[in-house]
């Protein structure tokens, strides 16, 4: 419940979610549930060479079990987009 409450307090903020398949998604946290499934809106993906199918996607639902980590530091996103291409 502690983490659920924490993520509820992050709703509406910009977060970076990295998945276990190395896909990093930056977006606004729309909602979260008890399994830490998340919905993001207005998303962007850093490594579009590897994940071209994500370019046109604007909203997504992420199953909690596939999340590696969530970051809400925007500078991390800057790092990912700058150096995450290689």
């Amino acid at each position: 419940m502690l983490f659920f409450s924490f993520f509820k307090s992050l709703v509406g903020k910009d977060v970076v979610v990295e998945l276990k398949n190395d896909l990093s998604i930056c977006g606004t946290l729309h909602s979260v549930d008890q399994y830490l499934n998340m919905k993001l809106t207005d998303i962007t993906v850093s490594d579009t060479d590897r994940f071209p199918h994500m370019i046109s996607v604007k909203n997504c639902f992420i199953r909690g079990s596939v999340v590696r980590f969530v970051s809400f530091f925007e500078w991390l996103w800057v790092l990912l987009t700058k150096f995450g291409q290689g």
Partner: protein
Amino acid sequence: MTSSLESYMNRMVNVVTGDGRIIIGLLKGFDQLINLVIEDAHERSFSETEGVLTTPLGLYIIRGENVPIGAFFPNFLALGRFENFKNECVQTPRRPTK
């Protein structure tokens, strides 16, 4: 507040599975484990030589543990955008290995 797929029901969804496959179709059902029922499913794969390939699959039930991400977008937008990838989309392994 609760995160549910209810708002994606009967809409075109783009599902990325655990082995990296991309399945497009109409979301007809789901449960609390995120098992999905996809009507008129198509697998979309990206090829260096042939552009975007779409393979019809029919009605699909995807087990929840295999679903990393369910992405939603209006279908027409995706079709328009994906056709443009023919020359740009390279180096995408069809089924990325871990």
